[in-house]
């Protein structure tokens, strides 16, 4: 994954502990997530067939993943017939190599980019920079993040951790040609970005994008956006290169009727986002290249429980509803994909050998709110629990769990253990020693009764003899 995110220090508990102290961040996140939750609920509530759309979305994605090889071949054929070129990349390094060569072949040293998480995942901007090619982000939030030399903290609104005066500072400091009396009023900031980018759009010869969907049947790519920078990048330059994860595929044109309803309502809480662009192959004389990206997706696909994470359409509804994300923010997850979906996708794409990645399945209280709002019904809690079992565990913890399992497995053993605990209850400490202290740091040891319940029940005939007394 992205070089910028590799070697992120710490783990989720440490990172989030620091993050919750940042009251500006917490204020921004609370305002943002609560606002969007309301909007989402409202537009979803307008549709009488939301659950049917959700069921169809889930099934279409599952069917596509089950037949991914067949549909990718169909897509390749359709795109090529329409004059586009299709490239396949096994991993980030290969994808970066392919894109770099394609840009070099045009002779250009500057490219404009539409927001693409896949290109962040592979660290494309950094890879291009190493070859003297500058990639300019054109999405307002990505521009703020890029100028501020920062990391995105949310899938949909990557600069949500910044407030307006911070953004003003960044623009004054880093945006060429900006007026010294720029205010921090959002319309003024937006106007500054508009003017700054407009010239770039009109003269750029090469653009790099991702895609929200690819349609196998027709070879069509689909990009949803709000600002118009997507349209600028997709239609003005002579050369367009799109880097897209292989899981973004849909079988047929008709399937868009489901996803164009699920995505805008789930992500920005609108009936429809301002602009959606669709194109097939080489359009209006453009050169078009599609780079299909694996980079760990086939590993996720192989996992029976985890593969549902590949249904994700990157709406961020799960982030907006998560009580943990609301307080910790996106940076604590140390990944391009934060929040609940990040907690299940990142460990599967990257593995759990790092302390950070192994901690991600635990970045949750398992409340399940994410599952409820997910438009493609990904059972995030199910995958989290499955990943917790697969995560590396300390030897002491493993031994402790084995012993506990052995005791709980047999009712005689359990009864003996309960009687022993009752006899010793006055000397059982509030805080358990050694490695077990981690357990009691966040849990209360339960009140131990004088007599185990089953013994009491047997002795008193279910309380009957006590009542008679």
């Amino acid at each position, binding site marked *: 994954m992205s070089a910028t995110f590799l070697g992120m220090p710490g783990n989720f508990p440490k990172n989030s502990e620091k993050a919750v102290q940042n009251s500006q961040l917490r204020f921004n996140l609370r305002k943002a997530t609560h606002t969007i939750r309301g909007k989402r609920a409202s537009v979803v509530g307008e549709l009488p067939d939301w659950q049917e759309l959700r069921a169809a979305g889930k099934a279409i994605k599952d069917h596509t993943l089950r037949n991914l090889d067949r549909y990718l071949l169909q897509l390749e054929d359709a795109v090529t017939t329409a004059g586009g070129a299709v490239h396949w990349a096994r991993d980030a390094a290969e994808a970066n190599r392919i894109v770099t060569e394609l840009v070099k072949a045009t002779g250009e040293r500057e490219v404009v980019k539409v927001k693409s998480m896949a290109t962040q995942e592979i660290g494309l901007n950094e890879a291009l920079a190493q070859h003297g090619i500058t990639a300019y982000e054109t999405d307002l939030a990505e521009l703020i993040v890029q100028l501020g030399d920062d990391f995105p903290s949310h899938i949909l*609104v990557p600069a949500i951790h910044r407030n*307006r005066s911070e953004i003003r500072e960044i623009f004054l400091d880093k945006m060429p040609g900006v007026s010294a009396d720029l205010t921090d009023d959002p319309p003024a900031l937006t106007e500054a970005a508009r003017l700054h980018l407009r010239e770039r759009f009109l003269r750029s010869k090469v653009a790099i994008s991702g895609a929200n969907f690819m349609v196998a049947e027709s070879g069509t790519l689909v990009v949803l956006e709000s600002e118009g920078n997507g349209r600028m990048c997709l239609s003005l330059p002579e050369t367009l290169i799109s880097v897209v994860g*292989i899981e973004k595929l849909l079988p047929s044109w008709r399937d868009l009727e489901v996803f164009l309803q699920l995505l805008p309502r789930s992500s920005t809480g609108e009936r429809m986002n301002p602009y959606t662009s669709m*194109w097939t192959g080489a359009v209006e004389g453009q050169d078009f290249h599609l780079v299909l990206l694996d980079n760990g997706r*086939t590993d996720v696909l192989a996992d*029976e429980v985890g593969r549902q994470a590949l249904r994700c359409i990157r709406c961020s509804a799960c982030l907006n509803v998560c009580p943990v994300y609301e307080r910790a923010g996106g940076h604590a997850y140390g990944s391009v994909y934060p929040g609940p979906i990040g907690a299940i996708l990142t460990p599967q794409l990257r593995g759990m050998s790092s302390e950070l990645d192994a901690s991600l399945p635990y970045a949750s209280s398992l409340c399940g709110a994410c599952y409820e709002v997910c438009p493609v019904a990904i059972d995030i809690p199910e995958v989290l629990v499955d990943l917790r079992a697969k995560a590396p565990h300390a030897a002491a913890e493993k031994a402790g769990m084995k012993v506990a399992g052995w005791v709980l497995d047999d009712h005689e053993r359990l009864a003996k253990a309960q009687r022993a605990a009752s006899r010793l209850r006055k000397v059982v400490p509030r805080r358990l020693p050694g490695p077990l202290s981690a357990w009691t740091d966040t849990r209360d040891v339960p009140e131990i009764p004088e007599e185990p319940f089953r013994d009491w029940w047997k002795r008193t005939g279910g309380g009957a003899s006590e009542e008679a007394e």
Partner: protein
Amino acid sequence: MSAREEILARIGRAVAGAPDVEIPRGYRVRREVDASELVRLFAERVDDYRAIVHVVAAADVSATVDACLGERKMIVPDGFDREGGWPDLRTADGVITGCAVAVAETGTIVLDHGPGQGTRAQTLVPDYHLCVVRADQIVPGVPEAIARLDPSRPLTWISGPSATSDIELNRVEGVHGPRTLEVVIST
């Protein structure tokens, strides 16, 4: 082994033995809605996005358009029936187009950049876009629109003027793309 072969092989191994899935399509498709209701709903939803909407009889469209445009230097695309187009994209004030289909439920206009609809650049660069939508082009919802559109054509779905909520989630209208969208519905 090429990247293509390797990825396809990995996929094959990954899904071997997994069951396939039936796709339930219980959502609303191919609705029948009264024509005047479609016009009313579409106008209401477009207005919700803060575009300017006019509903006029077909005979009055030309006069309404004249009134909307005023003195603006307009790009008039090939195939659009109107005189006096401005020749230079960069210095034009606006663009006038028809559309391929319009979606009532979401207040969306879809361009397929065919005759009368301009190229993608023509409908993007100018700051003002006036779109003439015929009542018979309005369909109830997204599924009906998808059914009417040709996937081999470049398509631009427009729902209001451009906007961003990236700064503190404050919605600001007008980033790139036309900051003013005016729609004339011809009944």
